[in-house]
């Protein structure tokens, strides 16, 4: 157990090298507006801070230390040069409201990135404004709404999502004021077209689809689906979280999507940072261009400029105070340039190779696939429902036991329609040895469920803590430390 930083604090301890040589107390702010009691921030030395957070960091699993096959999250290598570039002073020190003329360096990188994303997605224009996939979804659906509104097509109140969709899809649709209807999935992992047909109508604003889907399969009927939705007057939204699987292979724009988002923190390998920041640029085809959010980055005769609300009267508006997660976009640009044209397709190739290899090997070892007849894309779903029935060992138990063996667990219990599932995404940057190691660990755990089932059910055993009481966490809510003598 690592003491909290507050428990290492001593009243009056200061870290003077962070002080300024001369400061004078404030004398012109009325007393009633001043703070009386200092905030209870820790009073610790620099060394204490360094030691505490260095130690804390060591308690984490991370892509820099472990295989981390979290399905749909694309935990691949984060090249270190991307981080270096983002920290160059010219980039990191620039004020966002400084004149465009003083930011031609950063703007040129962002513009280049837009061009690259346009090409790989097959869309007509890109906005880099959204700060994560979910905000990309919001943006896309808001544009769909703006589009229908602009055409005075105000009856369209429904967004359709497959039942396999990521939770952000329905949540984003609701944030845009839509009702959400779920479309079921067939046994083979493809969308149930009959059900879709039955659901489409004049109330349909659009359909959100992930392709490859979160079931780890490519939606083969995509052209038909696109035609159906368009026929019904709806638009097609592409959730690009799985773009890693088809980078340089297939362009969403050519599948028939009207608007898309990309998760640069997945496909373009910007760091996940223990929960962000990400970047979720959106791309649109011709008809949605007027609605793109601001600011927009444009170029004319070698000069880069930001367009604002006044320049784009139909824009849905602005998504943040400045222009999105610039430093993340910059990292993605570096990554894209490192891969280059040649490298894009290779990402999809090897991500897919790795997934299919694991799927094959695990299948042969007796694990049950959710979609055994299908090719895996860059990820695949297996179900441990038999294991649960036979031994009582759940997917969660399996996951925790994997931690003991030095592997991060795959995504568990998602997608929701597959019971006791693992969504496994190895990514292209993992080596054959690493994949084999994980497969061996899975097999070992399978054997343990027979020979020493308690070991699995009570895992993990080698981590900083054993299994945590989540119910207590929610019931006896303790989300802010109340002091040594606190509650």
């Amino acid at each position, binding site marked *: 157990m690592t003491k909290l930083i507050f428990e290492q604090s001593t009243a009056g301890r200061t870290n003077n090298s962070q002080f300024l040589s001369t400061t004078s107390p*404030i004398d012109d702010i009325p007393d009633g507006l001043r703070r009386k009691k200092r905030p209870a*921030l*820790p009073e610790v030395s620099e060394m204490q801070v360094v030691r505490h957070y260095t130690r804390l960091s060591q308690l984490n699993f991370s892509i820099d230390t472990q295989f981390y096959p979290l399905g749909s999250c694309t935990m691949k*290598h984060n090249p270190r040069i991307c981080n270096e570039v983002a920290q160059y002073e010219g980039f990191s020190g620039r004020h966002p409201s400084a004149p465009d003329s003083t930011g031609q360096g950063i703007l040129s990188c962002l513009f280049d990135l837009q061009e690259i994303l346009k090409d790989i997605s097959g869309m007509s224009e890109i906005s880099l404004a959204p700060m994560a996939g979910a905000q990309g979804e919001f943006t896309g659906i808001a544009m769909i709404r703006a589009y229908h509104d602009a055409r005075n097509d105000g009856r369209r109140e429904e967004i359709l999502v497959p039942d396999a969709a990521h*939770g952000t899809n329905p949540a984003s649709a609701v944030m845009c004021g839509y009702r959400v209807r779920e479309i079921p999935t067939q046994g083979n992992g493809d969308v149930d077209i009959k059900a879709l047909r039955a659901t489409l109508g004049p109330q349909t604003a659009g359909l959100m689809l992930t392709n490859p889907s979160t079931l780890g399969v490519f939606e083969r009927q995509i052209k038909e689906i696109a035609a159906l939705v368009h026929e019904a007057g709806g638009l097609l939204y592409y959730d690009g979280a799985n773009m890693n699987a088809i980078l340089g292979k297939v362009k969403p724009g050519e599948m028939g999507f009207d608007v898309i988002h990309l998760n640069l923190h997945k496909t373009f390998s910007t760091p996940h940072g223990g929960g962000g*920041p990400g970047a979720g640029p959106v791309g649109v085809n011709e008809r949605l261009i007027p609605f793109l959010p601001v600011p927009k980055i444009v170029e004319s005769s070698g000069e880069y400029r930001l367009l604002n609300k006044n320049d784009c009267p139909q824009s849905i508006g602005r998504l943040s105070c*400045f222009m999105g997660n610039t430093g993340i976009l910059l990292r993605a640009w570096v990554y894209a*340039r490192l891969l280059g044209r040649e490298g894009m397709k290779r990402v999809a190739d090897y991500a897919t190779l790795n997934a299919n290899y694991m799927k094959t090997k695990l299948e042969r070892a007796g694990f049950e696939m959710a979609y055994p007849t299908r090719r895996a894309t860059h990820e695949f779903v297996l179900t441990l429902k038999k294991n649960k029935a036979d031994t009582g060992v759940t997917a969660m138990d399996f996951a925790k036991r994997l931690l003991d063996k030095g592997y991060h667990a795959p995504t568990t219990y998602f997608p929701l329609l597959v019971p006791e599932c693992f969504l496994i995404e190895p990514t292209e940057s993992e080596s054959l040895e690493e994949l084999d190691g994980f497969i061996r660990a899975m097999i070992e755990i399978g054997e343990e469920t027979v020979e020493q089932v308690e070991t699995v059910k009570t895992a993990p055993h080698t981590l900083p803590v054993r299994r945590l009481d989540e119910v207590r966490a929610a019931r006896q809510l303790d989300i802010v430390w109340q002091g040594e003598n606190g509650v």
Partner: protein
Amino acid sequence: MPFIPHTEKETRQMLEAIGVRQIDELFDEIPDELINEKLNHVPSAMGEAAIRQLSKKRAEIDNAYVNFIGAGAYEHHIPAAVWQLATRGEFYSAYTPYQAEASQGTLQLLYEYQTMMASLTAMDVSNASLYEGASALAEAVLMAVRTRCKKRRVLMPETVHPRYRETAQTIVKNQGIILSSVAYSAEIGCIDLNRLKDELSEDVAAIVIPQPNYFGILEDVDGLVDLAHDNACLVIAVVNPLSLAVLKAPGDWGETGADIVVGEGQPLGIPLSSGGPYFGFMCSSQKLVRQMPGRLVGRTVDVDGKQGFTLTLQAREQHIRRSKATSNICTNQGLMVTAATLYMSLMGPAGMEQAAQASHTNTRKLIEKLTSIDGVEAEFNSTVFHECVLRIDAPMDDLLRAMTAQGIIAGKALAADFNNLQNCLLVCATELRTEEEMDEYALHLERIVSKRRLDPPCARKM
């Protein structure tokens, strides 16, 4: 291959295991007509050495200016330890801490962060971050409306950052929520109390109160909070977190304090970076916690009774509640919060107080220097924290261009956002601006303004 470890031999071996002859076969479920490997606008691959060279050149050209803009993002000192630690691989390259046992580092840090923010704002609880300040305000509006179900109007004073107002509008408008503007008093640059009262009615769910406001001026927060609460409105405070080292915390405003507090976390150790990544923070009273958007980390125990940390109240979130979630947010700004936690730990309450004081002092010094120039005066006669609106007797665009040519980014022009502030500039001098830089500013400004006065505008050529 860059970032792909496979040798040809391994590739063959894997293909064999799968039972296909080449990688392309693995894509056989994709309709042929969809395959398109042409990427005419993606340049060829570049090595690390070359991309470094190119990037350095581009960074260099943006690196030649002394900055006097604040307006929502502030150039503060960031201790060297902040980013040296935050970019440790174990923080930098981990995912959202779904597997709690394997993420105790990030989780404990987030719990500490929540505690720091709660203490700084004097609120009960804090979430683990939102995207940035403006969208955090939008989330606060949605949250307020959720808790006051029938009411769909929120009062949004003009003294709130114009970009925050725009952002909130983009995000909340689709749900039929109305943001009603409240004009500011032209004299003191604060919310005009009478107009606010005029806007107050039954259907108002909340009032947004900025402190300091966009003009850098301190609002009468006590009075405003009491007024809001007397009218059964929630109070959404929008604050600069660094200012809270010296200004009254929102939890202490008025009789009962603000209900929701949001703001831009950037001043807490995050570099300016042309606008991001930053992070939005959100704190609230205990009773609103179940309406909060975003991640929350809770302290609990493991099966041995040992302390541990985990994501909690996940039933609010999209991955559990889907269309009924409190927000669609998933990936948030974890790494930025890591940096902010390090910043607050390294600075401590005393260090943050110093930084806030020094920024205040420097801005006052700057104002003094600049307003001693003929043709330059403060627009409002009010107490500011570390920003100030100046009215300058010169065409603003030309002036800014001339200053930029001297390597000085002189401030943020207000004309585009405020009709009656045509010749006004919002300026800021944080603790990092030196005496010489401020003198340089004054020198050039004086030269430009006086020249302008001597040459009639038609003759100007700069």
